[in-house]
């Protein structure tokens, strides 16, 4: 979350959606021309399709992520056969000790990742934009308090706090919901900071000053004048926050304090793989690869979007 890129405020949009629509098409062309961004977009689409179609894919493979298959294991608990038990029946092999189908686990793990990742991102954005916008716009003591809270939260060892909190939260609270909430609490400050600084810059612009002079109210200014001009920033931040949230969920599951078993989660599979690295490396490779490529796809798309919105940063990757 530390890649603070300075986004230039987007060009002021003229009233009437015309400019913006043309902007969107222009954006689309730029993305299509950037092969890395296009690859990222493809990867994200694939990830979303897999997550959505997880039950169908499992039905196709004739597997589910919960059924034990002890016949696929040797006496030591390690999968029998080549590459962690890869076969026509088990496409990615099986989980050591339980013999559960690894393909089904990885495919269903995508669901867990995107649910927590997107949920936490949405919550962070909502909170971050609301706080950043109002703090930048109204200023005064409210702004000072908000800035201070942001500074503290950004420097906070959040992983440690989340680990601790996860352990003692009431068990009646669904764990994914708790994760979304906690990740959002530590996710909004970086968004709020960017939105705030952009709002400060926008506030000086003629169209805002003119609106104020014409007697526009606070709500009108915030939602109708400022927010549309922050769209680019918000889209870019959404795209780069999702992978960091997916990563945070995976890290917590890896440490054993994230999504509880038996719900499939990539991070937990990777954590389980610690003891099997030598004997069954494929148990690490499949969930690890899925996590890596999903994160990479989102990051590539996010970089591409940022370049498309802000020509200044272009050429960083090619």
């Amino acid at each position, binding site marked *: 979350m530390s890649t603070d890129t300075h986004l230039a405020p987007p060009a002021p949009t003229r009233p009437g959606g015309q400019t913006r629509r043309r902007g969107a098409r222009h954006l689309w062309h730029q993305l299509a021309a950037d092969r890395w961004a296009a690859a990222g977009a493809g990867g994200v689409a694939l990830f979303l399709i897999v997550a959505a179609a997880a039950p169908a894919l499992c039905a196709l493979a004739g597997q589910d992520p919960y059924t034990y298959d002890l016949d696929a294991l040797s006496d030591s608990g390690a999968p029998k056969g080549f590459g962690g038990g890869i076969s026509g029946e088990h496409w990615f092999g099986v989980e050591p000790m339980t013999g559960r189908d690894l393909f089904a686990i990885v495919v269903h793990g995508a669901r867990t990742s995107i649910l927590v990742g997107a949920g936490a991102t949405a919550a962070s954005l909502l909170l971050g934009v609301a706080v950043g916008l109002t703090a930048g716009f109204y200023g005064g003591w409210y702004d000072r308090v908000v800035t201070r809270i942001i500074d503290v939260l950004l420097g906070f060892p959040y992983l440690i706090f989340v*680990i601790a909190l996860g352990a003692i939260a009431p068990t009646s609270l669904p764990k994914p919901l708790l994760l979304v909430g906690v990740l959002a609490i530590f996710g909004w400050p970086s968004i709020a900071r960017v939105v705030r600084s952009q709002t400060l810059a926008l506030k000086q612009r003629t169209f805002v000053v003119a609106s104020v002079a014409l007697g526009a109210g606070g709500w009108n200014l915030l939602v109708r004048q400022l927010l549309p001009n922050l769209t680019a920033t918000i889209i870019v931040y959404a795209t780069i926050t999702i992978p960091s949230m997916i990563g945070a969920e995976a890290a917590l599951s890896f440490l054993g304090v994230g999504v509880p078993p038996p719900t499939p989660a990539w991070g937990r599979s990777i954590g389980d793989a610690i003891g099997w690295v030598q004997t069954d490396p494929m148990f690490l490779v499949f969930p690890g690869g899925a996590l890596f490529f999903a994160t990479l796809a989102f990051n590539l798309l996010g970089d591409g979007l940022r370049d498309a919105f802000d020509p200044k940063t272009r050429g960083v990757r090619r």
Partner: protein
Amino acid sequence: MRLLRLISARLFGMIVTLLVISLITYAVFVLLPSDPAQLSCGRPCTPERLADARAFMGYDQPWAQQYLAFLGGIVAGRTFGSGAAAVHCAAPCFGYSFRLNDSVTHLILERIPVTFSIAIGAALLWLLIGVAAGVVSAVRRGTAIDRAAMTFSTIGVSAPSYLVGLLGILLFGFTLNMVPVNGYVPLTEDPVGWLWHLVLPWCVLALISAAVYARLTRGQMLEVLGEDYIRTARAKGLRERRVVGRHALRNVLIPVVTVFGLDLGSLLGGAVITERVFSMPGLGALLLDAVGNIDLPLIIGITLFSAFLIILANFLVDLVYGVLDPRVAR
């Protein structure tokens, strides 16, 4: 004098932040429905025994009073219970783990060398690699070196440290048999073994963050190199090495230090993950054990201790910032 004023202002801010954070953390953890007395009471747990355990641990007090007692413990130490069974916890007392029968401070101090060894070594390595790679990329913009560094950085940003760590163990530990696959040896016992056990964790933790810093440094460097004063420096005939290394780098380092200050929290988190990957008995392992045992005083103690640590480190980063950028101290 200015620096002194800066320091005292920051110090005051730090203390306020510490108080607020400790209050919130304490409130969150104590208000949640978990009862350490119940857990340590044993079976059969009669109501009298439970009440005794609560009184002994200080959980019979209202939480505000518990919090004050906790703060008092940090400053002056505190004693749990009374008479022959009393347990004293010397200052600075971050609580007492009734489960492990030890003061939280002592438990933390035992584990700190491991976590610090990982974190400090990795941080040095990542600053060095990241800034160097960023500067080279910026100066050699558009060349193969630049492209390679930036491709690597995109991959590095997306790869979780534990995944890279496990693959590293597989490759360098099991397959090539170059480094130990897990564990920790104290520096004082065996410096070479210490280094040997830490090489892989450092590299894993550092390479991933170095990717972020390389991008940041590159972007800043490109921006700074376009400034007028760089043109002036070049125009007056300074060598390129000096222009980049002296004039430009100093301004590039300011945002790098800022980001580094913000990353200290995640550095500690990264150390926790690294400890798990390499089975090292550090602070993170202690915390995960405490979580597994629902050892509430230990959990609170570690959380607050880490928060204190990060805030203190940020204070130090602020001072470095003041040295790097004289405008701040004004």
